[in-house]
C-alpha cells in the first residue's frame, strides 16, 4: 500500500546544504581529485599534459571544461588496474560489468569508496520512504554487477531488515515477499512489473505489504511507472548509477517523482553537446558527463556516459537542494543532426506516446533535398488512432507534427502508415533511415 507523502532525508546536512556552501565544498574536492588523478594515473596525466592543463589550473567547478574527457574505452584499455589512483593494497572491492563483447570493465573501490557508495544508496532508499522499520527485498543480481550489493549495503545502512534474494526464481520471491511482509523492493523496473503481474495472476495482491521501491539499472518510462505502481500499489522511484562512477545511487528520486536528485557532494554532473563537446545549460538535452569528487580508488574526471538527459536546478518540494536529472531518454549513438539541430529518436518517441492511449511504432527517414535536410516521421496507424472521419485523422497528423516542432525544434513531415507496414528488425529496433550519404 502506498505511503503518505512524507519526505524523509538520510543526510539533511549534505542533501539540503545551501548551494553556495556546497559549491565551495565541490571546488575543494575537485581540486583534490584532479591532483590525485594527475599524480597517480599516467593515462590521465598524459591527456592533461597534451592539453597543456595543470592541476593548478583547476580551481573551481567553472574550470571543469578545461579538463579532458574519460571514456568507457579507457577502462577497457587500462583493464584491470591501469586507472587505479590508490595502491592495490588499499583496494577492498572490485565491481564491474561484463559488457557484451571482449574484456569486462572493472572498477576498484577503497574502503572510502564503498562507504560513499553505501551512503548514496542509503539516501535513495530513505528518499523512497525506507528506514529501520522496513523490510527491503533486494532482487537485483548479486555479484560483479553493482545492483545487488549496492542496494544491500544501502538498505543495511538505513537499518532496514535486508532480504538478499538476488534475481530470478519469481515464485520464491513472491513467497518470501508475502511471508516476510517485505515493505520495499529493489530491482529493475521490468522485473518488478513481471513480479507485479505474477502476483496479480496468483491473486496474492492483498497479501502484500509493499509500499515503495527503488528501481533502476535500465531506462524506463512514465507509463511503466504508472503500470508498476498500480500493479503493486506502491510508490516506484527511479534510481540511477553506473559502476564507473560508484554504482547505483549516483542520483535518485524522492517521493515527488519528478527527476533524480544528484548526490552533488560526491559527483559533479554536466550536460554537453555530444558533437561539439561544449557544456550545455540546464534544461537542454544532451550527454550526461560525471566527475567524481570523493572517490579515491578509481576517480573519474569528466566521464562520458553517452546517456541523454536534461538537468534542472529548480527547487524540489522535498527540501533537498541538489540538482535533478531527468530520465535517460536515449543514447548519443542514436543521435541525428538535422539542419544543425541534435535530434534524438527518444524525443520523437516522447511526442508519440499518449496518442489516443497508445505508443505507436515509428520510423525516422532523413533525406537531403536541394541541400536541405528533410525529416519524415512515419507512424503506424493503430486501431485507437484511426477514425472514419478524414478531419480527425488530419488533426492527429498535425498534432504529431506540432508536438515534434515544439519538442525537437524542427519541422517534420508526418506520414500515417498502415499497421505492421514498417520493417521490424531483430533485437534493437532500427528506427532511423538516413539517406543523406554524409560519409
Amino acid at each position, binding site marked *: 500500500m502506498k505511503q503518505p507523502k512524507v519526505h524523509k532525508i538520510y543526510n539533511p546536512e549534505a542533501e539540503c546544504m545551501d548551494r553556495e556552501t556546497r559549491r565551495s565544498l565541490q571546488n575543494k574536492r575537485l581540486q583534490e581529485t584532479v591532483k590525485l588523478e594527475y599524480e597517480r594515473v599516467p593515462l590521465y596525466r598524459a591527456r592533461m599534459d597534451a592539453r597543456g592543463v595543470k592541476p593548478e589550473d583547476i580551481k573551481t567547478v567553472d574550470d571543469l571544461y578545461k579538463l579532458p574527457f574519460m571514456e568507457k574505452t579507457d577502462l577497457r584499455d587500462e583493464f584491470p588496474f591501469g586507472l587505479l589512483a590508490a595502491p592495490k593494497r588499499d583496494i577492498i572491492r572490485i565491481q564491474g560489468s561484463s559488457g557484451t563483447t571482449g574484456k569486462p570493465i572493472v572498477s576498484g573501490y577503497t574502503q572510502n569508496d564503498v562507504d560513499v557508495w553505501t551512503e548514496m544508496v542509503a539516501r535513495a532508499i530513505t528518499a523512497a520512504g525506507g528506514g529501520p522499520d522496513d523490510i527491503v527485498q533486494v532482487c537485483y543480481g548479486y555479484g560483479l554487477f553493482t545492483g545487488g550489493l549496492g542496494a544491500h549495503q544501502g538498505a543495511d545502512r538505513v537499518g532496514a531488515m535486508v532480504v538478499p534474494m538476488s534475481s530470478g526464481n519469481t515464485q520464491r520471491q513472491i513467497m518470501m515477499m508475502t511471508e516476510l511482509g517485505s515493505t520495499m523492493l529493489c530491482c529493475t523496473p521490468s522485473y518488478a512489473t513481471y513480479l507485479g503481474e505474477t502476483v496479480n495472476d496468483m491473486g496474492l495482491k492483498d497479501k502484500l505489504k509493499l509500499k515503495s521501491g527503488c528501481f533502476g539499472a535500465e531506462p524506463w518510462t512514465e507509463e511503466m511507472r504508472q503500470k508498476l505502481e498500480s500493479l503493486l500499489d506502491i510508490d516506484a522511484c527511479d534510481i540511477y548509477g553506473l559502476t564507473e562512477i560508484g554504482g547505483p545511487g549516483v542520483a535518485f528520486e524522492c517521493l515527488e517523482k519528478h527527476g533524480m536528485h544528484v548526490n552533488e557532494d560526491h559527483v559533479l554532473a554536466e550536460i554537453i553537446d555530444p558533437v561539439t563537446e561544449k557544456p550545455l545549460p540546464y534544461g537542454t538535452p544532451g550527454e550526461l558527463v560525471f566527475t567524481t569528487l570523493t572517490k579515491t580508488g578509481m576517480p573519474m574526471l569528466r566521464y562520458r556516459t553517452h546517456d541523454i538527459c536534461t538537468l534542472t536546478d529548480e527547487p524540489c518540494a522535498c527540501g533537498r537542494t541538489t540538482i535533478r536529472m531527468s530520465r535517460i531518454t536515449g543514447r548519443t549513438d542514436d543521435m541525428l543532426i538535422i539542419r544543425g539541430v541534435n535530434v534524438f529518436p527518444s524525443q520523437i518517441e516522447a511526442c508519440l506516446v499518449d496518442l489516443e492511449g497508445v505508443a505507436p511504432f515509428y520510423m525516422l527517414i532523413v533525406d537531403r533535398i536541394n541541400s536541405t535536410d528533410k525529416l519524415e516521421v512515419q507512424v503506424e496507424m493503430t*486501431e485507437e488512432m484511426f477514425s472514419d472521419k478524414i478531419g480527425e485523422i488530419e488533426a492527429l497528423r498535425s498534432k504529431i507534427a506540432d508536438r515534434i516542432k515544439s519538442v525537437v525544434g524542427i519541422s517534420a513531415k508526418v506520414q500515417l502508415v498502415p499497421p505492421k507496414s514498417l520493417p521490424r528488425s531483430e533485437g534493437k529496433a532500427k528506427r532511423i533511415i538516413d539517406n543523406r550519404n554524409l560519409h
Partner: protein
Amino acid sequence: MYISQISVYLENEKGSLSRLTSLLGSHQMDILAMTIADTAAFGIARFIIREESIDPCLAILQQAGYSARKNKVTCVRVENEPGGLNRVLEILDRAGVSIEYLYSFNYTSAGNALLILRLSDREAGVAALQKAKVTVVSKEEIGAL
C-alpha cells in the same frame, strides 16, 4: 436506431482499394454500399455489410494488417423523387444536427433510395427524422436486403 459501418485506412497508392475489395470478396463479404474518401496522403474506405458479418469482417481485416473500425451510422429511406434528399437535410438542419458525410446504397428498397448518414449527433438526428415521419432503417432490415 442505427446500422453498422466498417471503415478502413488505405494508403494512397495504386491498387490499395482493389486489394481491399478482393480480400473482402475472397471471404464472401457482400458489400451493400461503399464510399471512398481520400486526401493527397491517404484514403478511407467506408462500407456496409450485413450485421452478422461485421465482426468476422473486422477480424479478417485486422488479420490482414488493416486499421479498421466499426461505427454506428444512420440509414434513411428517401423517396426517389425531386426534393427527397433536400427534405432530409432540412429536417436535420433545423434540429441542429450536421452531416459528417453521406453516401447511398447500391440497392433500392421498393423504388426508394437508401441513404447512409454520419451525423454529428446520431440520437438527436434520428429523433428529428422519425418525428418528421422519415423512415429510418434498422440493421435488421438491412440484413434482409
